[in-house]
């Protein structure tokens, strides 16, 4: 069993790789389509701008392989921008569409009631889907590290597995069958985040 971490030049893969290795996973950091297809699970990390990231995926043909592998029911985890790319559109995007795995848009926090943007730091999770395999052993009130200005707004509310309150309650974990997306950084969220990555490694 091997986990592919898609390396498409959008930052920050060392912590994710190392954290998954802690739980016995063999890791392949790769941008090769055949290698991604050969792995049994896939992680899409990402830091940066939506358009740049999507352009990079398309340029390397990775958008197609991601869609195909998700269709094949391979466990898939999108982190931060890697989650946002799973939606259909983003307010950050000028000309790019997302992968459209989740129906809905990525929207920007509005400056309301003195909330600062970006939403940066440690905030509480509210677990909505207690049966979500990624959140096994993670309780409401656990804190995880956020660093973002945009958040996902899926049309189908049943895919929302956890939320966080920042002036408004926004979805921070999406889950549909084999696809998971987290808006925070589990690889930077110490024990709570590591628990989720352990859960991902242990998914059947």
């Amino acid at each position, binding site marked *: 069993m091997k986990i592919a971490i898609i390396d498409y*030049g959008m*930052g*920050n*893969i*060392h*912590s994710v*790789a*190392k*954290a998954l290795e802690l739980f016995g996973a063999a890791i392949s950091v790769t941008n090769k389509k055949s290698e991604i297809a050969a792995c049994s699970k896939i992680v899409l990390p990402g*830091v*940066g*701008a939506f358009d*740049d990231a999507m352009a990079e995926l398309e340029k390397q043909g990775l958008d197609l392989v991601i869609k195909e592998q998700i269709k094949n029911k391979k466990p898939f985890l999108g982190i931060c*921008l890697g989650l946002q790319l799973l939606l259909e559109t983003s307010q950050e995007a000028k000309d790019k569409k997302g992968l459209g795995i989740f129906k809905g848009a990525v929207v920007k926090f509005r*400056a309301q009631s003195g909330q*600062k*943007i*970006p*939403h*940066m*730091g*440690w*905030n*509480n999770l509210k677990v909505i889907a207690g049966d979500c395999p990624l959140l096994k052993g993670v309780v409401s009130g656990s*804190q995880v*590290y956020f*660093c*973002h*200005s945009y958040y996902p707004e899926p049309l189908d509310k049943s895919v929302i597995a956890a939320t966080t*309150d*920042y002036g408004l309650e926004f979805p921070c974990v999406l889950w549909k069958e084999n696809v998971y997306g987290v808006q925070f*950084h589990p*690889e*930077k*969220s*110490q024990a709570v*985040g*590591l628990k989720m990555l352990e859960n991902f490694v242990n998914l059947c």
Partner: protein
Amino acid sequence: MLSKRIIPCLDIKDGRVVKGVKFLGLRDAGDPVEVARAYDAQGADELVFLDITASFENRKTLVSLVERIARNIFMPFTVGGGIGDIGDIRNILNAGAEKVSLNTQAVKLPELISASAKRFGSQCIVVAIDAKRKGDSWEVFINGGRTPTGIDALAWAEKAARLGAGEILLTSMDHDGTKDGYDLELTKRVAQKVNIPVIASGGAGKLDDFYNVFAQAGADAALAASLFHYQEYSVKQVKEYLKERGVAVRS
């Protein structure tokens, strides 16, 4: 609710921690990874690594250090010191840092803020401001606090935010090293001026200083160096004190 953050800051030279971090029980108190682990165990919310050598030869050392930290510490950290261009920023972020901190170069070349925010997202671009009181206002200094710029700190903070900075790391040069507390007035003025998080820095000496900078000045995070390095207080003690006084912190 978003927690207030406590951030130890480590000065790095040639890949090693300087300013004598005196942790009992550390095999190598000069090893940034060892020190970071110790702060992780104390419940630090983030770390800032400031490369004080910042010469070209040291860039590679720094990038490999960042990679080593990211492989070992599962908490967010910021890297600053001598970052000159988009390439430097990309290398440090790709190596695993959550954020980069720009100071002198951002003043000299403000377009660097907008270009890097556009490329990597505002959330990973911190603008560090070293400010010194001058009459009724504060002046920005660069080159490690050696060179006055004539620029007003409040105006600069506002401009940096407008250009796309995701956070301001605000150091009071007047308070730095005094242990008389953070500069509450400066911090408050900047925090009110910008709609991005403000990290207060310079002057932490007592537990109450942390409370004041959050409760009175509206800082989002508080940074300290020697207070933690010399174990006058642990991060845990600071957080327990804040929690008792009703400040939201991560436990």
